[in-house]
């Protein structure tokens, strides 16, 4: 079975509605898939490590979680899901030749990502100003470490989205911008996926 990684897009627009069946085509280039797999494995270790350490002193972790703002965590989850929605819409728009819509949706996704970062810094500032830092206890060490590593992913993802939007300004749809957006979009959805698990694990588990 031959596996094609290049997107099926050619210079002719695809039909608007493509049937969702298994194909031989990878959703994104193999290098990005390997990166995603590695990142998922890494964060799996983070999740298990957190729970392993939590089992030794669950009360410490409950008290720590109660110091976090569920509202800000929830807001960030909704923001990240919304930015993923915009990035997915951009991918669809690219495939059907709607270049301007794709650019707008990609930049919209990036902007919502900036809102996520803003709330994150407000949250960090609030915690640090009330005396909670990474050296306070194990819970806050994990909190700052895991959300900090995730935040670095968010910043990198925004960079990729902005660059992807710039590539879309080409006068005609060519494979390059579509394949690059597939890379940027996959990375962004990975960031979203990781937060979807991090939020209940750190904020809601009491």
């Amino acid at each position, binding site marked *: 079975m031959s596996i094609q990684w290049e997107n099926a897009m050619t210079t002719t627009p695809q039909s608007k509605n493509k049937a*969702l069946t*298994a194909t031989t085509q990878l959703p994104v280039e193999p290098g990005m898939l390997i990166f995603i*797999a590695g990142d*998922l494995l890494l964060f799996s270790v983070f999740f*298990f490590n957190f*729970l392993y350490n939590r089992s030794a002193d669950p009360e410490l972790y409950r008290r720590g979680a109660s110091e976090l703002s*569920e509202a800000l965590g929830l807001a960030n989850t909704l923001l990240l899901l*919304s930015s993923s929605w915009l990035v997915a819409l951009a991918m669809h728009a690219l495939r059907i030749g709607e270049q301007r819509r794709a650019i707008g949706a990609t930049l919209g996704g990036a902007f919502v990502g900036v809102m996520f970062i803003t709330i994150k810094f407000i949250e960090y500032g609030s915690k640090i100003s009330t005396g909670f830092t990474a050296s306070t206890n194990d819970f806050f060490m994990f909190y700052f470490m895991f959300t900090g590593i995730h935040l670095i992913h968010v910043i990198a993802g925004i960079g990729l989205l902005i660059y992807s939007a710039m590539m879309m300004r080409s006068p005609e749809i060519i494979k390059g911008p579509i394949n690059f957006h597939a890379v940027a979009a996959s990375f962004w959805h990975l960031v979203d996926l990781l937060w*979807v698990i991090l939020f*209940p694990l750190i904020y809601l588990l009491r």
Partner: protein
Amino acid sequence: MPERSSRRITWIWLLLLAATCGTWAVTSAAYWSGYHQLLAPLLFSIACVKARIILLDFIELRTSPRWLRLTGESWLAFVCLGMIVMERF
């Protein structure tokens, strides 16, 4: 058979938003009522269902080779089960 369309993408987004808000509401209610001990498996399961939706419909494993989709879903099932077990013990 579902088709890839902007409408479908939007419905998926709304479903994810609803699941997120619902999780938070149920969590709050459970803590107030005292049933929080039973909540962790529910939290992890809902989170992994949401993660699965993102894997299949945003990262597009649904239209990928079956081996890739199976790998992704297997990883997710392993993580979900692992977290539930580790939280319990």
